[in-house]
C-alpha cells in the first residue's frame, strides 16, 4: 500500500494507541503517522502499575511497550506531554495543546478512561490518590511502606491488587467496599469469597457493605475515612478505586456518537468513517454475546488496534476474539475468559481450599459463556477456546476433575 502524503493521527499513547502505530507499520502503511500522548512517557504497560511496578520489582524500561528508539526507527512522529484539544472533522484536522494543527487522512482516538473520583467532603485532601498512570503509581509507591496505613475505597481489581502490593511493602491496608462482597461488578460470589479470605489471611482488613460519609484530615492531609455508622477508619493515604469512565469528551465535542464510550463497529470505526476509536474509550460490539459493551482490558485494546489498522490498510478484518482479563495478587493468578452475559448457571470445578479452581458460567442451553480460573491455566485456555466455539457443556462433566479440560465437550 502506498499512501505517502496522507497522515494517520493517533490521539492517546496508551496500550491501544501504541499498539496501533506499530501494527500500521507491520501492515505496510508507509505514510506519516503521528502519535499524541498527554503523558511524558512513550507508550507503557499499565497492568504492572498496581503490581510489579508498585512493589519496585520492575524498572522504567521494562514498563515501556517498546523501547524509546522504536518510534524514530519506525518513522512515527511521537509527540509527548501534548494533548489534543479539538477535532475539526470538516477540515480533517486535530488541534493540539501546543497550538499545532495536524491534518489527517485517518484518525484513531485512543484516549482511554479516567478514574472516577468521589464527591465527598475531604476528597481533595493531600494523600487522596487514584491510580491510572505511572505518575499516580509513583505517588502511591511513596506512600506505602512499614508503618503506613492505606484505606482503599473500592474492592475491585485495582483495589485488591494495591492491597496485595501494600502488604508486600509492609504497609497496613483496609479495603472499604459499598457492596456486600468484593469484585461485585466483575466476578461471581465464590470468587469474591475466595479473594476476601486470601487477603484477610495476609493481613488485609475489610469493611464490606459500608457507606462513606467523608474523608477527614489533619493539616490538609488525609487522616481517616468516616463511615456512615460513625466510625473513623484511620489511615495516612486513601486510594480511590471506584472504576473509570470513558474519556470521550473530544469525540463527543466533535459530534461522534457516544454512549458511555465512543460507539464503534466491529472494525473499530466510529460514526465518521475517517475516524476510528480503540481501547477503554469505546463501546464496541461483542459478536459472541450479541450486544455492545465497554471493556477495560489490554486484550481489548490490542484487538481493536488490530481491527483499526487492518481496516485502514485494506487487510481482511481479524476474527473476533473472546474477551479476557487477568489479575495477579500474591501468588494467585486469576484469568477470566469471556463474560457471563445470559449465564444462568455457575459450576465449580476444583477446590478453592486447594488454591486452584475454576467457575464455569453456562447459558440456559448449556452454552459456555465465561470461565473464571484461579491458578488454573488449562481451564482458562480451554475455556477460552470452547467459548469461541459456543460449546455446550454438561455441569456434571465440568465438576468431574478426572475428565481433562480438553475432553469436557465429549
Amino acid at each position, binding site marked *: 500500500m502506498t499512501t505517502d502524503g496522507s497522515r494517520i493521527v493517533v490521539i492517546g499513547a496508551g496500550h491501544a494507541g501504541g499498539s496501533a502505530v506499530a501494527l500500521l507499520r507491520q501492515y505496510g502503511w508507509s505514510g506519516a503517522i503521528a502519535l499524541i500522548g498527554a503523558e511524558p512517557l512513550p507508550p507503557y504497560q499499565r497492568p*504492572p502499575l498496581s503490581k510489579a511496578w508498585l512493589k519496585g520489582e520492575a524498572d522504567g524500561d521494562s514498563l515501556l511497550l*517498546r523501547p524509546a528508539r*522504536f518510534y524514530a526507527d519506525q518513522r512515527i512522529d511521537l509527540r509527548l506531554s501534548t494533548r489534543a484539544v479539538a477535532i475539526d472533522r470538516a477540515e480533517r484536522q486535530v488541534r493540539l495543546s501546543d497550538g499545532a494543527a495536524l491534518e489527517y487522512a485517518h484518525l484513531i482516538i485512543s484516549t482511554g478512561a479516567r478514574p472516577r473520583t468521589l464527591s465527598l467532603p475531604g476528597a481533595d485532601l493531600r494523600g487522596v490518590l487514584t491510580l491510572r498512570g505511572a505518575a499516580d503509581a509513583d505517588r502511591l509507591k511513596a506512600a506505602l511502606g512499614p508503618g503506613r496505613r492505606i484505606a482503599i475505597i473500592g474492592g475491585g481489581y485495582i483495589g485488591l491488587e494495591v492491597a496485595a502490593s501494600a502488604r508486600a511493602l509492609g504497609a497496613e491496608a483496609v479495603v472499604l467496599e459499598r457492596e456486600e462482597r468484593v469484585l461485585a461488578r466483575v466476578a461471581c460470589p465464590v470468587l469474591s469469597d475466595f479473594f476476601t479470605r486470601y487477603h484477610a489471611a495476609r493481613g488485609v482488613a475489610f469493611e464490606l457493605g459500608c457507606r462513606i460519609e467523608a474523608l477527614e484530615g489533619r493539616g490538609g492531609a488525609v487522616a481517616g475515612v468516616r463511615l456512615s455508622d460513625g466510625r473513623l477508619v484511620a489511615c495516612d493515604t486513601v486510594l480511590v478505586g471506584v472504576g473509570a469512565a470513558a474519556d470521550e469528551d473530544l469525540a463527543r465535542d466533535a459530534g461522534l456518537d457516544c454512549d458511555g464510550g465512543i460507539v464503534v463497529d466491529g472494525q473499530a470505526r466510529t460514526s465518521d468513517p475517517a475516524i476510528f476509536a480503540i481501547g477503554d474509550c469505546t463501546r464496541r460490539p461483542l459478536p459472541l454475546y450479541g450486544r455492545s459493551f465497554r471493556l477495560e482490558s489490554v486484550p481489548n485494546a490490542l484487538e481493536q488496534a488490530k481491527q483499526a489498522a487492518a481496516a485502514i490498510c485494506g487487510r481482511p478484518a481479524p476474527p473476533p*476474539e473472546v474477551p479476557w482479563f487477568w489479575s495477579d495478587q500474591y501468588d494467585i493468578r486469576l484469568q477470566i475468559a469471556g463474560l457471563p452475559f445470559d449465564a444462568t448457571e455457575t459450576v465449580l470445578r476444583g477446590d478453592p481450599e486447594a488454591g486452584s479452581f475454576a467457575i464455569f458460567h453456562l447459558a440456559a442451553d448449556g452454552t459456555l459463556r465465561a470461565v473464571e480460573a484461579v491458578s488454573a*491455566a488449562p481451564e482458562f*485456555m480451554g475455556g477460552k477456546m470452547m467459548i469461541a466455539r459456543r460449546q455446550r457443556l454438561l455441569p456434571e462433566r465440568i465438576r468431574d476433575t478426572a475428565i481433562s479440560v480438553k475432553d469436557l465437550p465429549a
Partner: protein
Amino acid sequence: MPKVTYIEYNGTEHVVDVPVGTSVMRGAVDNNIPGIDADCGGECACATCHVYIEPEWFAKTGARSSQEESMLSFAAVTQDNSRLSCQIEMTAELDGLVLRMPEGQH
C-alpha cells in the same frame, strides 16, 4: 550483542540483536517483527508469543515451566519444539538462535 533469527510463517527472515537478559519475545516486539502478538506483555498468561525453536537450538532454550506447559497445550498447532518466547531469556549461549512463527497466535 547476540543475534536471533525470526522467520515469519511466510518465510520472511528477520535477524536482529537481542540484548542478554531480554526475552526472545521482547526482541521481536521491540523490532516490530510481525507474528508474535504478546498480548499479556510477557506474563505467561496468554500464549500469543508461541514460536517453534529450530531443533538444534531447542535444548539450549531450557525447560518449559508447568505454567508454560499448560498454556502451550492449548495454543494453536503446537509441536515438540514449541515454546512461549516470553519465557526464554536471551543469553550469550543463545547467540545465533533461529526460530519460526506459527501461522497465527489466536
